[in-house]
């Protein structure tokens, strides 16, 4: 009780030094929270972008598609009768916002003079408009169900072929039975998915028209959009169980299973974050250790006196460590408060970020302050303070009592 009070009074005793230590701790806590919060917002932006432009939350395929589908995609289509049953079932779940089919194949797009290999996606325009909210129309008009021949061209592709809105094009593809066929399509608009690579070779067209070209009634996949990304695991498990029960030969993939690029970026940035964390740790540590060593030196006679009165070495260590703990606690709390204020200020300022890697769209900077990030870094600040007090505290405890007393 009195020991704690003494520690507290000692913290207050040298205001300037405590202030410097507090600043160092706050610097550490704030920089890590802001950086972590920025990364978290970036991860979320990437995740939601890839979900709402390409992947949805969950994709449903015919069994075997993910293993063999790349060789013989036409062998692993979902049949129309299964499709109907599954759509009804999935739509019945309260977590599901919508479910829509896609037919994917590769083809050759020609404008009469040039031909380019393209990735084609046959879609249900009305539903896809809701799902693919992150797909931006950069020119022209969207697709609609009644316009069979309409197609949206990735804007990279659109520009490289020097297309115009309304221009007629020919799309060739290998059909489901192995022959070769072609259909005319009309470029009604240019789109950007946010991923440049995709935009350079991507076409979206009406599912019915795509099915006619491919001679099939089936679809490659069903894409499910949920109300909340956090529900992905739950719904996956639910659907898995239902499909098994009904004996449907289907397989499921979550956005996370499919978003390799997202995971690569997250891993890279997590690595960067770890390095920065280490650097901040060292900077703050060096900053505090120095001031704490000075505090110990200054109080040499006091340490001698307390030891003479019978304090053990451990009690001397615990005195200085508890002072550091108090400083760490105050510094962390202040750091968290300032971090929240700064994060809100920066987010409200809507400063535009440079384009993220591999992306073709820019976003205003956002910094998330999720509670686990705040807690983790508050503990980090506390730990730094305590760790940096150990060396000076041990030094204090090892003082020769008679020599320490001579400085009185």
């Amino acid at each position, binding site marked *: *009780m*009195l*020991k704690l*009070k*003494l520690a507290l*009074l*000692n913290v*207050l*005793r040298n205001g300037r030094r405590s202030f410097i230590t507090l600043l160092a701790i706050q610097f550490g806590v704030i920089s890590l929270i802001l950086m972590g919060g920025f990364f978290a917002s970036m991860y979320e932006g990437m995740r939601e972008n890839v979900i709402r432009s390409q992947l949805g939350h969950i994709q449903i395929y015919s069994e075997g598609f993910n293993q063999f589908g790349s060789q013989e995609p036409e062998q692993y289509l979902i049949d129309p009768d299964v499709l109907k049953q599954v759509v009804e079932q999935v739509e019945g779940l309260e977590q599901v916002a919508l479910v829509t089919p896609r037919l994917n194949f590769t083809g050759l797009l020609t404008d009469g003079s040039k031909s380019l290999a393209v990735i084609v996606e046959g879609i249900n325009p009305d539903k896809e408009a809701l799902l693919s909210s992150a797909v931006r129309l950069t020119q022209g008009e969207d697709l609609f169900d009644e316009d069979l021949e309409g197609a949206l061209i990735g804007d990279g592709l659109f520009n490289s072929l020097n297309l115009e809105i309304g221009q007629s094009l020919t799309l060739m593809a290998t059909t489901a039975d192995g022959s070769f066929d072609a259909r005319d399509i009309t470029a009604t608009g240019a789109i950007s998915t946010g991923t440049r690579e995709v935009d350079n070779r991507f076409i979206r067209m009406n599912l019915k028209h795509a099915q006619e070209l491919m001679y099939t009634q089936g679809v490659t996949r069903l894409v499910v959009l949920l109300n909340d990304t956090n529900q992905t695991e739950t719904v996956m498990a639910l659907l898995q169980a239902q499909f098994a029960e009904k004996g449907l030969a289907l397989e499921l993939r979550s956005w996370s299973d499919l978003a390799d690029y997202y995971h690569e970026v997250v891993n890279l940035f997590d690595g960067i974050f770890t390095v920065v964390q280490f650097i901040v740790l060292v900077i703050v540590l060096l900053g505090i250790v120095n001031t704490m060593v000075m505090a110990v030196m200054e109080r040499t*006679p*006091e340490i*001698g*006196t*307390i*030891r*003479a*009165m*019978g*304090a*053990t*070495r*451990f*009690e001397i260590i615990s005195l200085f460590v508890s002072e550091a703990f108090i400083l760490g606690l105050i510094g962390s709390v202040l750091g968290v408060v300032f971090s929240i204020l700064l994060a809100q200020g920066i987010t409200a300022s809507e400063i535009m970020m440079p384009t993220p890697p591999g992306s073709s769209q820019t976003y205003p900077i956002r910094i998330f302050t999720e509670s686990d990030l705040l807690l983790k870094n508050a503990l980090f600040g506390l730990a730094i303070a305590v760790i940096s007090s150990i060396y000076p505290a041990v030094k204090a405890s090892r003082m020769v*009592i*008679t020599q320490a*007393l001579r400085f*009185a």
Partner: protein
Amino acid sequence: MSVVKLQQVSRAFPVGNKPIVALDKLDLTLEKGEFVVLRGASGSGKSTLLNLIGAMDDPDGGEVYIHDQALSTLSDRQKSKLRSRYIGFIFQSFNLIPVLTALENVQYPLSLQKVPNAQAKARAAEALEQVGLADFIHRRPNQLSGGQMQRVAIARAIVTKPDIILADEPTANLDSETSTQIMDLLGELNVQTGLTFLFATHHDFVLSRASRVLELKDGKIIKDDKLRGLTSVKTKAS
């Protein structure tokens, strides 16, 4: 049973290549209730002797016993506990903790003994009353005069009811009138409580309080006078 016993205690400090002998094969026994004045010129070894008895320093030869406990056999932790239980210190420069009030300074050694807070507070207030500072218990050291600070230090030394109080020139920083008052106080405490005092000084005016006077020179005891009978002190104490 003797409170303190030294057998052939030597202590030398290495200075350059020729060590300075601060204490030379010293034998000494202190009995309970004695008020021992330790005289000697500056550099005669008084502080060195007090440090050894106070279990804060180790002899190079011989053995120091507190309550028949040989200090050389104790760990640092055990010596700390022994200091806490049996020894009180009074220093020349008072050595109060500046951020604590008088009451808290006196309470501190009790908190090291893990005495519950309320009880420690009561005992500290009582000790401060014994040294005549009942009205100053909430002052910080910088709000007290030198004599008052030393009274707080005395209260801090007696509050744990130690067996011996080691005072190393406690009046050296005080004017002569205040010094006399402090000496009177220590003498009274010796008589009232039977506390054993070992009091190092190079002044003569303290001698009237002494029951025994030791004189040190070059690390040796050259004089050991018992001035008044110990029995009288014991009678008054009991």
